[in-house]
C-alpha cells in the first residue's frame, strides 16, 4: 500500500513544514521587536496626539496592565517564550486595538474564509485556464495565434493585481456601472444558503477575482507553453505521433502529465506572491477579507492585529504548500514507487 519511500517523503515534508513555520514565526517576532518603542505606548501616544490630551499618572498603571495583557513584560527572551506559548499552544494572538477587547484571532477567523474562498477559487481558475491555453498555444507553436497570444501574455503577466483592480473599478464599476465596487454581497440579501445570496456573492466577487485571473492566467500560460514546446521536442513524442495516436490522447497522456508536475510545484511556490498582491485588491474592493483587515490595522497602528495577520498569512500559505506537497505523489508516480 504505502511504500517506505512514501512514508519518508511525507515525514520529511511535514518536518520541513514545522521547521519553516517555527523559523518564520521567530523571525517575524524579532523583526517586529526591532521596531523602536513598544506598541502600547505608541498607541497611547497616538491617542494623546489625536485628542490632544495628557493621560494622568493613574492611567500609566493601567498601561502597565495592558502591557502585561499584550505580552510585553520582561526582557525580550521572556517575551519570546510567552509569545511562542500563546501562539502555538493557546492559539491566542492577543487582544486587538481595532475591536478591543476582542482577541485578534476572532477578527481574523471571521475574515479568513472570505479571503481563502475568493483567492482559492480565483487562483485555481487562472491556473487551469493558463495550463489549458498554454498547452494549446504551445501545440500550435510558431503560428500567428501563438505569437499574438504569447506577446500579450508577456505584457500582462507582470502587472501587479492591484493596478488592474484600479482599472476594473474605474471602467466596470464607475464609467460603465456594471459591477459593484465594494463589499462581498449586497446589503439587501440575507446571508444564507439561498439563490439570491449566492448570486450576489458571485456578482460581487467578479471584479476582485478578475483582477487576479486576467493576470495570473497569462503567467501560467507562458510557463505551460514553454514546457509544452520542450516536451514536443522529445523522442517519445515523435514516436507517439508516428504510432498514429490521436491528438487528444497525445495531449492528454503525454503532454499534460509533463505539465502538471512542474506547474503544481510552481503553484506552491507562487502562493506567497499571489497573496501579497491579493491583499491590496481586497482593500481596493473593501472585500471583507484579511487584506482589508490588514490595511485597517496598519492605519490604526493596531500592532497585535498586524502581527496576527502576518502570522495567519504565513501559516495559511505554508499549510497550503504542505497540502500541495502531500497531494503531489498522486500525480507523480516516481514518488510513489518502491
Amino acid at each position, binding site marked *: 500500500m504505502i511504500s517506505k519511500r512514501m512514508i519518508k517523503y511525507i515525514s520529511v515534508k511535514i518536518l*520541513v513544514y514545522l521547521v*519553516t513555520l517555527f*523559523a*518564520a514565526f521567530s523571525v*517575524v517576532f524579532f*523583526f*517586529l521587536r526591532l*521596531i*523602536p518603542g513598544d506598541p502600547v505606548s*505608541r498607541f497611547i501616544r497616538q491617542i494623546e496626539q489625536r485628542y490632544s490630551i495628557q493621560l494622568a499618572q493613574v492611567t500609566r498603571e493601567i498601561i502597565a496592565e495592558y502591557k502585561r495583557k499584550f505580552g510585553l513584560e520582561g526582557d525580550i527572551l521572556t517575551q519570546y517564550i510567552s509569545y511562542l506559548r500563546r501562539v502555538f499552544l493557546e492559539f491566542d494572538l492577543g487582544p486587538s486595538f481595532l475591536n478591543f477587547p476582542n482577541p485578534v484571532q476572532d477578527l481574523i477567523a471571521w475574515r479568513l474564509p472570505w479571503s481563502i474562498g475568493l483567492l482559492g477559487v480565483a487562483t485555481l481558475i487562472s491556473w487551469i485556464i493558463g495550463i489549458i491555453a498554454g498547452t494549446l498555444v504551445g501545440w500550435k*507553436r*510558431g503560428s500567428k495565434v*501563438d*505569437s499574438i497570444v*504569447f*506577446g500579450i501574455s*508577456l*505584457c500582462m*503577466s*507582470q*502587472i*501587479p493585481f*492591484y*493596478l488592474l483592480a*484600479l*482599472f476594473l*473599478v*474605474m471602467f466596470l464599476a*464607475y*464609467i460603465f456601472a456594471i459591477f459593484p465596487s465594494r463589499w462581498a454581497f449586497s446589503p439587501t440579501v440575507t446571508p444564507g444558503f439561498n439563490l439570491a445570496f449566492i448570486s450576489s456573492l458571485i456578482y460581487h466577487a467578479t471584479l476582485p477575482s478578475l483582477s487576479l485571473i486576467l493576470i495570473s492566467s497569462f503567467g501560467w500560460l507562458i510557463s505551460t*507553453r*514553454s514546457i509544452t*514546446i*520542450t516536451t514536443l*521536442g522529445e523522442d517519445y513524442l515523435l514516436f507517439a505521433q508516428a504510432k498514429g495516436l490521436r491528438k487528444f490522447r497525445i495531449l492528454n497522456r503525454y503532454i499534460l502529465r509533463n505539465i502538471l508536475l512542474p506547474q503544481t510545484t510552481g503553484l*506552491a*511556490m507562487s*502562493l*506567497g*506572491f499571489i*497573496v*501579497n*498582491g491579493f*491583499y*491590496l485588491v481586497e*482593500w481596493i474592493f473593501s472585500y471583507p477579507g484579511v487584506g482589508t483587515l*490588514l*490595511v485597517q490595522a*496598519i*492605519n490604526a*497602528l493596531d500592532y497585535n492585529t*498586524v*502581527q496576527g*495577520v*502576518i502570522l495567519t*498569512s*504565513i501559516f495559511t*500559505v*505554508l499549510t497550503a*504548500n504542505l497540502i500541495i506537497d502531500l497531494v503531489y505523489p498522486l500525480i507523480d508516480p516516481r514518488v510513489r514507487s518502491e
Partner: protein
Amino acid sequence: MTRQKSFIQKIKGGSPLLIKGTLTFRVGFFTLLFLTILAVLEPYINNHLLKGHSSTEFGLFPKLLPPSFEHPLGTDHFGRDIFSLQLTGLKYSLIIGLLAGGIATLIAVIIATASGYLGGKVDRILNAMTNSVLVIPTLPIILAIAAYVRMNLLMMSFTLAAFSWPWPTRVIRAQILSLKERPYVDLAKVSGLNSFEIMFFEILPNLMPFIGVGFANAIIGAMIAETGLRLIGLGPGDIPSLGLLLFWSMGFGAIAQGYYQMVLAPAAFLISIFISLNLINVGLEEIFNPRLKKVTGL
C-alpha cells in the same frame, strides 16, 4: 576579457544605438530608455513648466482644471499640475526601483556565489532559506515595517531589497550551478587557476546576462511592493513616487468624482515600467539561453 566583449557584442550591433537582440528585448529596452530619459530630464522639464517651483507645491494653479494646452492632464485638488507630478513620480519610482533592485541583486550575487561555489550543506541551507522567503507572503511584513518606522529613500530601498532578493538569487544560483559543470571551468582548474580566479574570470563574465535578468526581476519585485505600500499611504510623504500619487488620487476620490486621468496616468506609467522590465527580462534570456529562443519563438 574576450568573453565580456562577446557579451556586449551580443547585445549591441555596430552602432551603440542599434540594439540587435530579439524584438522582445528591443521593445522593452527602448520603452525603458524613453522612461528613464523622461525621468532624468524631469528637473529641466518641470523647471520650464512650473517656472522654478516644485511640482508638489500646493496652490500653484487653480484647482481641478480640465486638461488643456498648458496643463496636458489638468490640475489636481491641490492646484498642482498633474503632468509635472507624473514626471516627478516617475523619477522617484525609478530611483527607488533601481536602488532596491541593485541592493537586492548584490545580496543575490553574494548568496548565489556562496551557495553555488561552496555547495553541499551551505547550498542546501541557503537554498531552503531562499525558497522560504519566496514562499512566504512578505507584503504584510513590509507594510508593518513601513507603518512603524520613519522611512527615507535609502531606508526604504533597503527594506524593499530585504524582501526581493530571493528572485534574483534563484536565477543566478541556477546559472552558477550550470556554469560550474562546463568544460572550460575544468580546463581552468587544470591550468592551475584558484577558485577565486575561476569565479571572477571564468564564471562571472558569463553570469553577467543572468545577473541582468535577476536585476530586472528584483526591480519588478521591489517596485510592486513599493507601489503597494505607497498605495495605502505608507512610506516617506516627501518622496512622491507614482504609488503615492495613486494614494493621493484615491484619497481625493478621483475615480468616483470622474477625474480619471489622476488615476490613469500614474497607473499607465507603472504598467509601462513593469511591461518593459519583463520584456527585457525575457529578451535577455532569449539572447543568452539559445535553447529558450526556440521556445519563445519571437
